[in-house]
């Protein structure tokens, strides 16, 4: 089913919540309030059922057997690829490479494209908003190849500071940027960045891990060259992600991992790699995860990404308002103060309570938030903190979850009163 074109309506969160078995449970005698979807999302029953059905009905290795269930399994994988391509707004499903997660997708580009195209002195431009997944692979390349890494800074609101973009891009061969910060919720202007990068012939990789689950995606409109995505943050299972790349780039890249499936021919003298995307899918793929991911895409399409985005924007505005009203200057919310250019990721500092201690008290109230550096240590340093407590909102959250967060914060303030 594809209702992508449906006009955005309002989301019936009560019925959405009912689709998620985990959200029915209690922890510490309290109804669970799950506010850590930035780390991983919960899974609807339809995803669990699809994976279960795969194993009980069509489990067989794909692209190999000529028997009925093997053909069905192969068709399931390829239809998931097509569904993902359409969901992302990719021109062709042949440009979708399945990977373990977004991290592996970025590593694929760094190893295959990077080691083919970058040499000593070349510049890779990153941003201070990046997750370690979009930093470390480039640092590995820098150490190995003498590539120079530059950084687009962030401003006081945790958004990219683009005044010196042209200078930073001078000599750049690659711009690698997140579409949505997993710490500040900032949404960098991807089209503007790709245009500027392409003007100096730099290739653009977008880490869309925190964007795709929450906003309608049109990666063609972004104009990027590579896009990394992950399944488990968009209601799908862990262990499955994808790289989208322009056909002409992927076709010119050598394989990343070697093994079964990724070849046309192997002799004692060597091998001939398969075409894209098979070239990059060595070994047996996580088939049930691919099937589960497809089910999550269907689920999101059924609700409509426009509707989901509108709901999250409304809820984020409610959260910002509620938290500011109740806690005033005692609470710092890192990131843009307005919902116009941010997602529902709220990194919090409450008085001088350490995020670890804060999340511990919140947990006693059933409220799940993430405490730590969120795999973004360079950004934490700029924000002047070593850690934050992060509440991240998703389609199954509603105002009662935000109220529960606020109540639990107040309780933490009471507990650590000193």
């Amino acid at each position: 089913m594809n209702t992508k074109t449906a006009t955005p309506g309002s989301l019936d969160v009560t019925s959405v919540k009912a689709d998620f078995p985990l959200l029915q449970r209690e922890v510490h005698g309290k109804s669970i309030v799950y506010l850590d979807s930035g780390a991983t999302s919960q899974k609807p029953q339809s995803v669990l059922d699809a994976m279960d059905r795969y194993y009980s009905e069509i489990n067989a290795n794909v692209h190999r057997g000529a028997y009925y269930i093997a053909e069905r399994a192969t068709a399931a994988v390829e239809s998931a690829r097509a569904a993902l391509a359409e969901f992302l707004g990719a021109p062709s499903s042949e440009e979708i490479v399945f990977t373990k997660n977004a991290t592996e997708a970025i590593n694929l580009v760094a190893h295959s494209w990077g080691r083919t195209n970058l040499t000593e002195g070349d510049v890779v431009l990153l941003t201070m908003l990046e997750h370690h997944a979009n930093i470390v692979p480039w640092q590995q390349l820098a150490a190995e190849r003498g590539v120079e890494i530059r950084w687009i800074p962030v401003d006081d609101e945790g958004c990219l500071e683009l005044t010196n973009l042209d200078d930073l891009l001078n000599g750049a061969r690659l711009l690698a940027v997140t579409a949505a910060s997993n710490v500040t919720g900032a949404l960098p202007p991807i089209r503007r960045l790709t245009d500027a990068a392409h003007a100096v012939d730099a290739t653009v990789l977008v880490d869309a891990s925190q964007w795709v689950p929450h906003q309608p995606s049109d990666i063609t409109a972004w104009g990027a060259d590579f896009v990394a995505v992950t399944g488990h943050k968009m209601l799908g299972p862990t262990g499955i992600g994808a790289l989208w790349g322009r056909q002409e780039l992927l076709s010119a890249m050598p394989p990343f991992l070697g093994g079964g499936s990724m070849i046309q021919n192997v002799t004692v003298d060597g091998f001939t790699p398969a075409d894209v995307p098979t070239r990059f899918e060595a070994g047996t793929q996580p088939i049930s995860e691919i099937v589960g991911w497809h089910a999550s895409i269907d689920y999101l399409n059924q609700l409509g990404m426009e509707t989901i985005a509108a709901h999250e924007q409304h809820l984020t505005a409610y959260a910002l308002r509620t938290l500011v009203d109740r806690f005033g200057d005692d609470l710092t919310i890192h990131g843009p103060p307005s919902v116009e250019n941010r997602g529902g990721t709220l990194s919090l500092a409450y008085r001088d309570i350490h995020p670890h201690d804060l999340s511990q008290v919140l947990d006693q109230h059933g409220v799940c938030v993430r405490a730590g550096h969120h795999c973004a240590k360079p950004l934490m340093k700029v924000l002047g903190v070593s850690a934050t407590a992060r509440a991240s909102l998703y389609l199954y959250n509603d105002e009662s979850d935000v109220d529960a967060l606020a109540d639990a914060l107040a309780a933490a303030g009471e507990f650590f009163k000193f």
Partner: protein
Amino acid sequence: MAGLEDLYREIILDHYRNPRNRGELEVPPATMAEGFNPLCGDEVRVYLQVADGIITEVGIGGQGCSISQSSASMMSTAVVGKSIDETRSVLRKFKEMMSIHEHGLEGDHLSPDENQPGRSGLGDLEALRGVVKFPVRIKCATLGWNTLEQALTEPGDG
């Protein structure tokens, strides 16, 4: 169910609010080791001044949550004035206490005697026993101690 009171004992909060032996020592003659909890970004620096095999002064630096900072503070008071051997013995006992989770989260496998404060000879450090009921926080509590262990192996002038 383990409650917050099991974790945040009054003496722990006291050491968090009023950390002991806070500060840096000059290196050398002191030795210094730095420990990180990569999960949460907590940092502890342990400075040791050793004379004639006795720890004469300890300095604690860094930042982090109440458990990591109070545990480091309590560690500093526990080892000042002790010989290296005695320090290693406290270190071993403390780490043993923190490894209870390997056998069971609720600590109910312990005989009532062992659960009594004072039995381990760890004194005030017993207050940190409740941390084992919160497995994620064990690394917070042991951070300062692992860093101490590192500092003990650093070559110094003592």
